[in-house]
């Protein structure tokens, strides 16, 4: 099993550009999450999903969008990239709420 796979690992965007961060899991997990990690700030929840077709906002959703058309995939869309979105993004999944979360290796995004 690959677990949680994130692509790309690194990306540089110009202000105003858009991109999609990909996340896929092969563990048949129901719950999937997107976090951003900034130095000294821990992880902040952007969006999460409890199943295909269901998504909900986390603590810092502004400037992002998600979709969950399949159990396996949970892409994160950045529209009109801003320098404030420079961060490391982590995707995670759990089988159900309260279970161990499995994390991808992260995407380091720089907006210039």
């Amino acid at each position, binding site marked *: 099993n690959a677990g*949680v796979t994130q692509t790309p690992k690194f990306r540089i965007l110009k202000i105003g550009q858009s991109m999609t961060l990909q996340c896929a899991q092969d563990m048949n997990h129901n*719950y999937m*999450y997107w*976090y951003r990690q900034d130095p*000294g*700030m*821990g*992880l*902040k*929840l952007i969006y*999460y999903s*409890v199943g295909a077709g269901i998504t909900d906002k*986390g603590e810092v959703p502004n400037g992002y969008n998600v979709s969950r058309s399949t159990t396996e995939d949970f892409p994160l869309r950045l529209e009109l990239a801003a320098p404030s979105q420079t961060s490391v993004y*982590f995707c*995670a999944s759990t089988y*159900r*709420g*309260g279970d*161990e*979360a499995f*994390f*991808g*290796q*992260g995407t380091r995004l720089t907006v210039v």
Partner: protein
Amino acid sequence: AQSVTQPDIHITVSEGASLELRCNYSYGATPYLFWYVQSPGQGLQLLLKYFSGDTLVQGIKGFEAEFKRSQSSFNLRKPSVHWSDAAEYFCAVGESNSGYSTLTFGKGTMLLVSP
């Protein structure tokens, strides 16, 4: 809303010495509590978790944590630190009003291990 406080941003411990990382949470009901570890350039890995029952929880890599309701704490301990334990450690609490479907993380404690 729940919150998690890790009061120590950095801790340096000599190899072979004992370790305690502090975590305090703010939460109304019985929380789900977790400790995760992050090595440089990697995602997070679960060390241990507490849901209910015995308040002393054993985890991987020789770590343990104790839940103390009266102090709203869930401190992580290890009796003898190894150089490979150098990493960032995150305490997290699960939110119950959504079926524990989301976690709130502390800001992390960076552990440095000196020879």
